[in-house]
């Protein structure tokens, strides 16, 4: 493999195949007839995807109720009335599922096949970003056929979805433990004590949490649409 310079790094061809760790090959099925099927998304990644999907749906609807409390007041109350309590409980449990899934996905970045990782530091990434963007805004482009995610999609996953998930987890965890404010767990700088010094007081934490939640909603709209669009355009 030829050594690449900085300019190649920025404007070089968008082809990472040479740079992948050879030990992290995806499984390839020979379909005969000169065609192969590359099994890009491993089973654990697929399971993670749908667990995450369900968690986000549940979190969004329970979260919306917790934030807006849109049910109207009733006056024939019952001893078992516990709507906000239950929805908060569901939100918390699902939140922990979401965080466990996030941790698993970060772990899988290091052990999964080459398509579970990211290529931001690899040659041609910025070129790939630009060509992918032109593809999406209907300009003539040289977006290569990528196996796995294209550069723009990777960027969106890491910066948008990844960052939002991490902000949601950290602020969510802190708010979950707020009633135990005086404990070592909340005071210790190395555990959660640093959170309010980064994100601000409780009001600001709530706003970060909601902002990041809406961030994932916008990501979801674009993600679902582009998945269908890709199928529609590439289908032969």
């Amino acid at each position, binding site marked *: 493999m030829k050594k690449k310079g900085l300019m190649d790094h920025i404007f070089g061809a968008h082809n990472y195949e040479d740079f992948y760790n050879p030990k992290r090959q995806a499984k390839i099925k020979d379909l005969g007839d000169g065609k192969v099927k590359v099994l890009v998304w491993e089973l654990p990644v697929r399971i993670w995807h749908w667990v995450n999907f369900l968690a986000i749906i549940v979190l969004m609807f329970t979260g919306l109720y917790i934030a807006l409390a849109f049910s109207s007041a009733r006056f024939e109350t019952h001893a078992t009335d516990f709507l906000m309590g239950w929805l908060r409980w569901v939100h918390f449990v699902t939140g922990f599922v979401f965080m466990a899934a996030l941790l698993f996905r970060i772990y899988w970045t290091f052990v999964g096949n080459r398509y579970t990782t990211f290529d931001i530091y690899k040659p041609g990434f910025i070129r790939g970003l630009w060509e992918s963007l032109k593809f999406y805004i209907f300009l003539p482009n040289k977006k290569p056929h990528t196996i796995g995610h294209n550069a723009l999609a990777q960027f969106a996953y890491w910066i948008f979805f990844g960052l939002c998930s991490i902000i949601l987890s950290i602020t969510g965890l802190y708010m979950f433990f707020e009633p135990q404010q005086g404990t070592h767990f909340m005071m210790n700088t190395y555990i959660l004590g640093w959170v309010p010094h980064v994100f601000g007081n*409780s009001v600001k934490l709530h706003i970060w949490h909601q902002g990041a939640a809406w961030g994932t909603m916008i990501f979801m709209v674009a993600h679902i649409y582009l998945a269908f669009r890709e199928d529609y355009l590439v289908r032969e």
Partner: protein
Amino acid sequence: MEKKSVFQSAIERGVSRRDFLKMCTALAATMGLEFSQTDKVVNAMETKEKVPVIWLQFQDCTGCSESFIRSSHPTTESVVLDLISLEYSEVLSAASGHQVEEAMEAVIEHYKGKYILATEGSIPEDGIYCMVGGKPANEIYERVAKNALAVIAYGSCSAWGGIAGAKPNPTNAKPVTAFDSGDTPVMIVPGCPPISEVMTGVIAHYLTFGILPELDGFGRPKAFYKHRIHDKCNRRAYFDAGLFVESFDDEASKQGYCLYKVGCKGPTTYNSCMEMRWNGGTSMPILSGNPCIGCSEDGFWDAGSFTERLADIPLPQKIATVDPAVIGGVVTGVATAAVVAHGAATAVKKNIDDKKNTHEDH
């Protein structure tokens, strides 16, 4: 200056031993000590001399002083006359002008490292917008704080910047923690104003144990600021049940339902109003049907309307704020519309391209 214990000066003022013990018991309760620890308080008051206090006011409204003089357990007169020796206070000092300024200098000289500095109000960064006795506020603060034993920053202005520090903050007001106090520890007691028993309680804690109370990550005394209003609220059951007041005159408000939807900041506010209550334990806002306005939190004045729960994202003009749920909903709606339009454009383009290709094939 002669040195007398707190007990001695109280007895000289005509307080009976019985009343003195009552005061100590009240103090112990205020500090959150067990009843069995009352003797520690009594012992401290019998042996320790009154602690000199300099009370500096900067960009404030004197509301904290007003709250302080309404303390009922212990009563203000027992605090001001027995517990502490208030050497300098713009509100309470009998002397004025250069005489009282001289008194302050005398304290700094005679009690170097032994007096408590209480502050009220924020300090403008340049100091020039707040001059007392011909000196800028930041210079006064830094000099008095560096020679003090401890600084107690009373009120949200001193603790966070408060009202003077709210947008657009013309004087560039800062909390006292933004200024150099040397090695002197700073404790903040936020609130607009803080609860009077909390204000006196932290001084009593110092007198009893000789150290400042345990502080949290922001420098607030844990004993009074470790719980949110929400976690101690008497209307919490209505919150969990999902029963909310929609407007201030509806049936739900008469039933005493949760004030979450009319802007209660209880879920994001650390203070002890629910336990201590106000005006000698009479009541507090939520008990009287008004939502908590979150006055002890950083930036409460900029956090939008008192009757909106979460509206902290400022609009460009910086005069109003808007709920993140509104912004989120609008942006997601716009994104969905954009996606639909983009989808339609994709379909049209593919049709044109396909037609072109079939023409070329012929």
